[in-house]
């Protein structure tokens, strides 16, 4: 018995004094990123929250303390709620039109062996075009008088359409270019697909699993993590998107494409209401944080 107790002694000691191993190399590599995040992400965010409690004056900051007035203003603002609805509408349209496209492209590309490298390059090439140039190009394509789209559609007896001029079409028209700009997402999914052991696929084939069954039981489960990550990035991207609306419609027609990010810009640089802009930014942050949290929770549950 005594021997048995003595035999346990060293284990007890090991629990009392755990050895902490600090990976200095990892810390050295991570530190710059942490500092940059603190400086350029968290500090501006905290500053925006701080500003939201003031009638903020850029020249004589912070201006008058107004407590929650800027948030109360948002609750009663038709502009805010219109932008709020538009932002969610854009989220759903982007989801319907663009989110699944790179997944399908990657799966198809994974099946094609012939000229696969060339096709990958072709998909990726448009991402090298500056986004602003791309949006300007599409703006011209949509031009009701001289645009290529209406010109081509009239040959099959369609149109002319207002595209960006029609409040009911403007959102869809803004999102449409996104369908053709999936290069980077496609590459990420394609890389994930390359990580699936070919033996698994072959074994499934031998067992008689058809393409859809293989997709459901092997391919999608393997992609789930990447899809989750991409979805979080998609949520942030869509909620913060600004360039296409700003360039193609300026938020019009009749505020039908004005989003929360545009409202932040307008409130600050056109109306000089930096406090209001800060409060909208914080609301956006909360929305994105909540959706992301729910998404992560659901993924973990699965």
């Amino acid at each position: 018995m005594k021997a048995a107790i003595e035999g346990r002694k060293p284990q007890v000691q090991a629990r009392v004094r755990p050895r902490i191993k600090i990976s200095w190399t990892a810390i050295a590599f991570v530190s710059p990123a942490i500092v940059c995040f603190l400086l350029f992400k968290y500090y501006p965010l905290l500053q925006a929250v701080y500003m939201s409690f003031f009638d903020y004056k850029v020249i004589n900051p912070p201006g008058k303390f107004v407590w929650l007035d800027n948030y109360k203003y948002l609750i009663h603002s038709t502009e805010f709620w219109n932008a709020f609805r538009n932002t969610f509408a854009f989220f759903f349209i982007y989801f319907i039109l663009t989110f699944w496209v790179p997944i399908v492209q990657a799966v198809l590309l994974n099946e094609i062996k012939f000229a696969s490298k060339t096709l990958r390059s072709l998909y990726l090439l448009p991402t090298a075009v500056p986004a602003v140039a791309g949006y300007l190009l599409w703006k011209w394509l949509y031009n009701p008088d001289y645009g290529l789209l209406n010109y081509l559609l009239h040959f099959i007896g369609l149109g002319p359409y207002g595209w960006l001029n029609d409040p009911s079409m403007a959102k869809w028209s803004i999102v449409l270019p996104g369908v053709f700009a999936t290069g980077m997402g496609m590459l990420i999914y394609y890389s994930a697909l390359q990580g699936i052991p070919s033996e698994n696929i072959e074994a499934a084939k031998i067992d008689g699993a058809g393409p859809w069954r293989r997709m459901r039981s092997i391919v999608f489960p393997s992609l789930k993590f990447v899809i989750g990550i991409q979805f979080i990035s998609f949520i942030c991207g869509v909620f913060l998107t600004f360039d296409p609306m700003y360039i193609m419609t300026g938020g019009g027609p009749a505020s039908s494409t004005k989003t929360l990010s545009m409202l932040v810009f307008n409130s600050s640089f056109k109306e000089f209401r930096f406090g209001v802009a800060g409060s909208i930014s914080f609301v956006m942050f909360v929305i994105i944080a909540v959706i992301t949290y729910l998404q992560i929770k659901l993924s973990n549950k699965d």
Partner: protein
Amino acid sequence: MKKKQRFRTWSSLAIALVLMLMVSACSGGNSSNVTNVSEATNDSSSTNAAANNGSDNAEATADNTASNGGTVEITVWDQPNPDDTMKSIKEEVYADFEVQHPNIKVKHELMPQGTNDREVFVTAMAGGNGPDAYHSAHFPIIADWVGQGLALDLTPYWDSYADKDKFIPSSMEAGTIDGKVYGVPHDMYVTGLFWNKKMFEAAGLDRDTPPANWDQLVEFGKKLADPAKKQYGITLLGMEWADWWFEYYVWQAGGDLTHVNPDGTVQLAFTEEPSVTALQFYKDLKWKDKIVQNNVLQSYQDNMNDIFQGRAAMSNAASGGFGDYVAQGMDLNDVGFAPYPVGPSGKGPGQIGGAYWIINPKTTKEKQDAAWQYIMYLNSKEVAEKYLQFQQDNGIFPNLLSVRSDVDPSQFAQDISPELVAAVNKAASDTHLEYFLKERLTPYVVKAVQKALTDEKSNPKQLLQEAQDAAQKEVVDAYNASVKK
């Protein structure tokens, strides 16, 4: 072993300290900004107090600086672009200033790149990098900038300014707020109707007779519109600045979009008869008369391109822009300019626009004084005439409207048709400033205008009522409350 642990402990502390220092350096920057701001505020207040003796004092300060052997350096964003046709004369004028003011060194810089000049200026000022003097405080924006503390109260300087009575009264309206002068007029323009005489002739109209009223505007427009040639009667501005041109129609109908009460509060007039009549007319131009461009939301530049390329027969034009027409290949003999067609009120006032010189309230007293000296010099009769002479000598079309009453640009425009000069003067005889609180109310008016232009079934009165209700609750109530405090 102990040594190793001690090393780890100290290393951890050192890293934590470095991180804390970095973060505090960041927030320290902020607190130092706050300190600077409070110091600057004090500077600014002392400036205002000290500047009570006005421009004489400014000159005295500059002289004192000189006698002390010091030179004041000011920064101004007025460096000419390499392709600026006025580059050589501007550089000559700048050099002359430094010869006459050896104690002042002006650092001429190009305006930093950005989406638009207003945004760039506000951002630079917020970051403490704004210029000491700035010449693009546009008429409609200056009141907001004053409210934000972006412009120094120039009244003490202005009161002792020898040339203060030489500026035309309409040029001073927007820059004078609550009896205080915040801006010195830099340039101005008056708007009116442009018409393409060649297109008028081709449509069987008299090339020298513009439409005199709304009925004629529609009648002429229908004759000029030719969808087969993608040619149309008159341009509308329907993009995010849609309220800019729309307000002209409201004036022509006899109203305005806002009224300023004697106590400084604002009253919205979106639903008053003239505003509704104007929006109905605007809508009819698009849907009933079909004399405007298909793409009613196209950009301002696209509108200009339609004019230059002979697609738009009539448009809005500004007295300072004829040079662009010539530069884009139009024959000046085909360019017509007149006051706007009158609406139901029998009036067609032109809009007065332009920009002011302002001085940075956060800069030092010496720099403010030097900036004032610089502004006075550039706004002098001599310099204005020097520029006009250069333009005449080099075939550059001048702005036919001067902010100074003692400078007559038509004297330097001898090759330009007297008819055009007379039309500008006529348009300038009945003018209107843009509607009050425009910067805040634009989203509401634009929404109504765009809806009318994109939805044939929309009801202008209802659109304006919705716009007014929202604007009253979200902008005007708060504004009026702040005025009453």
